[in-house]
């Protein structure tokens, strides 16, 4: 029938001519008119719906849960490829197989989490379209070209991930470069996938006026809103931190569950690398956060005040607590490493560790001191206000910036200490270099404190624009000078104590889990802050939230929700990782002879910055 000429149809015996077709058609329209009219009414009515609700749980709560799960999974999925790829390059360059195996293990976790991330993304989209149709129609009108770009990036990312994962073993040897190029593409598309939706979310917080123009011009103008790039940078770093600490927690749990010596050694090492990546990312994260906050203030001072001095002010005390625990947890893990992986070092570093602990706790106490104290009327009268006469000075930004910089310095020095433990420098200039580092560290510490104290006596704009920036630059200067200097010193250093893996106490595994939980809570908390800073606006100053959920809940309720979200995410991650490693279980079953048969002699480990014994390469992952 497909090739049948038209005239045959015209001359067919079908009893409907052109005229009668019109008559029948007219009759049909008349008969169907009420239905068509009803359908049109229903369509008009549907178009005018602004919100829908889910009974029981509420539209906002379900969006909160699904969006948080999607965001955390996405953070992991976008953060892991960065360091998996770096690990692979390190393995390729150093010819150390263990790095390649580690990179592959990271990617295995990634592939299993990827589908779940997409699943939650799909659920989130359906829920948003269904529950917030007006907002989504508005955003679609502005951002539609970016939706297409996002879809294309997603397709490219998925295809690249498949090739990257399934081609791992096939692309070894002289094809390794191709595989590494795939890793590069994977990260490139991943960054694209991250920054496009960031534009939608940041437009909601800091919209710009979208003028006339083509659809692409309008979308591009809206994407380039003031907080887009600060959020992009902040999230990029935060994703690495999240990915690192979650991989660390995974290794921590596997370490606790490990039966054989090989497993213990491997997961001890993996936990160390995860923690190292997390800390490495965490050090510049406050600077990125500071930049974001500065842009928010510049964009709209009222929004900045809502965040830092309004109903969200106490949130930053909770943030300080979480960051403080995270810093303590990360340092504690380093210190445990010194004590248990490098036998004999514990006594040598006991005093510096104690001093660091005191500084960290003092800094945390200052950071957690609120500007306005919770006080009864009588207490407030005695104090002469809600500000404590002595502790009140610790409640302002000058003090917070100072202690956060000091905590970063201490954490960085913990890492340097761990790096140098068990070795003696042999270079002729080692003494001079160490003295120089000591002097620089002392000057940096004093300068950060002096600028912090001076900050009380200058206008806020001077402090924000110059003093705080100078404090940040001082700390960065220390990091970028100490790292290569220490690397040079260690290059010719003599190992006095071999590093031994798999000897960490049980609490090391728990500290890795604690760090991951802190990071997840932090991301949840700051997501709530970012969302609440828009107060009763879907799009700040442009589209008001007129639903029943236009209010921002109090911190206690929000924190309970964050805890629930964190718990759900932990269970979800545990399930995904369990599924991902099901296949390994059969391979890693201990032989009939029991684990003792496999226990190698202790002390066969070699020290290295990223740690590991020569045997690590032989371990199954």
């Amino acid at each position, binding site marked *: 029938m497909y090739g049948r000429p038209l005239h045959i149809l015209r001359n067919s015996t079908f009893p409907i001519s052109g005229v009668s077709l019109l008559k029948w058609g007219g009759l049909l329209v008349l008969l169907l008119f009420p239905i068509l009219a009803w359908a049109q009414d229903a369509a008009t009515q549907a178009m005018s719906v602004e919100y829908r609700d889910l009974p029981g749980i509420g539209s906002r709560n379900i969006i909160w849960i699904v969006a948080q799960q999607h965001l955390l999974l996405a953070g992991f999925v976008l953060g892991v490829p960065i360091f998996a790829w770096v690990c692979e390059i390190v393995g390729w360059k150093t010819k150390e197989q263990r790095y390649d195996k580690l990179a592959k293990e990271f990617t295995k976790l990634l592939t299993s989490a990827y589908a779940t991330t997409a699943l939650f993304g799909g659920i989130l989209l359906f829920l948003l379209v269904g529950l917030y149709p007006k907002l989504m129609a508005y955003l679609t009108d502005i951002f539609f070209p970016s939706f297409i770009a996002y879809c294309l990036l997603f397709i490219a990312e998925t295809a690249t991930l498949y090739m990257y994962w399934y081609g791992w073993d096939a692309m070894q040897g002289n094809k390794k470069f191709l595989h590494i190029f795939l890793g590069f593409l994977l990260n490139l598309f991943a960054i694209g996938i991250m920054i496009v939706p960031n534009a939608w979310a940041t437009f909601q917080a800091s919209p710009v006026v979208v003028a006339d123009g083509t659809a692409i011009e309008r979308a591009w103008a809206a994407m380039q809103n003031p907080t887009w790039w600060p959020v992009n940078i902040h999230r990029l770093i935060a994703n690495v931190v999240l990915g690192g600490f979650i991989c660390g927690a995974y290794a921590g749990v596997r370490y606790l569950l490990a039966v054989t010596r090989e497993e213990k050694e491997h997961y001890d090492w993996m936990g160390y690398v995860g923690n190292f990546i997390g800390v490495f990312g965490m050090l510049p994260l406050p600077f990125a956060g500071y930049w974001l906050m500065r842009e928010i203030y510049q964009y709209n001072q009222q929004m900045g005040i809502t965040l830092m001095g309004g109903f969200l002010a106490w949130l930053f005390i909770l943030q300080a607590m979480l960051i403080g625990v995270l810093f303590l947890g990360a340092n504690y893990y380093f210190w445990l490493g010194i004590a248990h992986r490098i036998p004999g070092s514990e006594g040598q570093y006991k005093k510096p560790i104690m001093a660091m602990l005191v500084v960290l706790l003092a800094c945390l106490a200052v950071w957690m001191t609120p500007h306005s104290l919770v006080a009864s009327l009588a207490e407030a009268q005695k104090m002469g206000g809600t500000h404590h006469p002595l502790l009140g000075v610790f409640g302002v930004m000058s003090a917070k910036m100072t202690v956060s910089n000091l905590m970063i310095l201490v954490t960085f020095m913990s890492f340097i200490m761990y790096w140098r433990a068990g070795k003696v420098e042999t270079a002729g200039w080692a003494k001079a270099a160490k003295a120089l580092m000591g002097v620089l560290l002392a000057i940096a510490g004093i300068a950060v404190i002096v600028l912090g104290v001076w900050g009380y006596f200058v206008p806020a704009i001077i402090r924000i624009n110059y003093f705080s920036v100078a404090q940040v630059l001082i700390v960065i200067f220390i990091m970028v000078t100490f790292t290569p200097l220490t690397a040079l010193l260690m290059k010719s250093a003599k190992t006095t104590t071999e590093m031994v893996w798999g000897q960490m106490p049980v609490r090391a595994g728990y500290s890795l*889990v604690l760090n991951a939980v802190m990071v997840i809570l932090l991301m949840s908390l700051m997501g709530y802050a970012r969302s609440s800073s828009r107060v009763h606006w879907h799009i700040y100053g442009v589209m008001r939230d007129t639903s029943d959920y236009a209010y921002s809940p109090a911190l206690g309720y929000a924190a309970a929700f964050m805890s629930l979200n964190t718990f759900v995410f932990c269970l979800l991650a545990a399930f995904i990782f369990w599924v991902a490693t099901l296949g390994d279980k059969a391979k890693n079953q201990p032989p009939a002879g029991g684990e003792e048969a496999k226990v190698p002699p202790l002390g066969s480990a070699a020290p290295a910055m990223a740690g590991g014994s020569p045997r690590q390469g032989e371990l199954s992952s």
Partner: protein
Amino acid sequence: MSEVALLQLIGLIVVGLGISILLFIKSKFLRVIGFVVIVLGSFSLVALSVPQMASLPPAIESFDIASVESPDDLASLGQKIFFSKGQCALCHSIGPSESARCPDLAGIGAKLAPEFIYESLTDPQAYIYLDFRHDQLPEEYPAQMPYINKNPIALSKPEIYSVIAFLQKMSGEPISIKVEDIMSPQSEQEEETVAIHGTGDASSSVVVAQATTTGSQ
């Protein structure tokens, strides 16, 4: 029982459950879950111990043109539109501001005639800026201002008049917009030339010239 008290009770139960798991369960994985539960419960309890402040939305303001009775009402309505529906404050400030990305509008109602302000809002490309500061051909700076009477802002004519009334009042000028004009807006002829008041002294480096080649119009 208040919501906070209820949540505190749940938090305590959760922490207790976690401690029980650590005390009585031997499974390592379940012990890790117990540890996580303790951490999350403790975090919730700390968050519930700080002052609980929710942010409630203010009452929705409606722009009822019919309620305008005097020029001051008009200016007051214009002020609300300026800071909300009109989105003017997203870019403009009134008075010096570090965050403003567009011209400061302080005193603008005294500097410019209402007809010119109206045209600037509804046809921002009608005039372009020429910069004579360099010893070269003058550079053109097309206006980035959106068409305020079109989507997505889409202010109505009375709303735009209200904003102009606000700008005049804020500049200390008598409000020249009449309430009757708002109630029954007449179709106005677009003027070919607009008087420009107080754009600066003769030595000012930036002048305003009528655009002749703005193809986007």
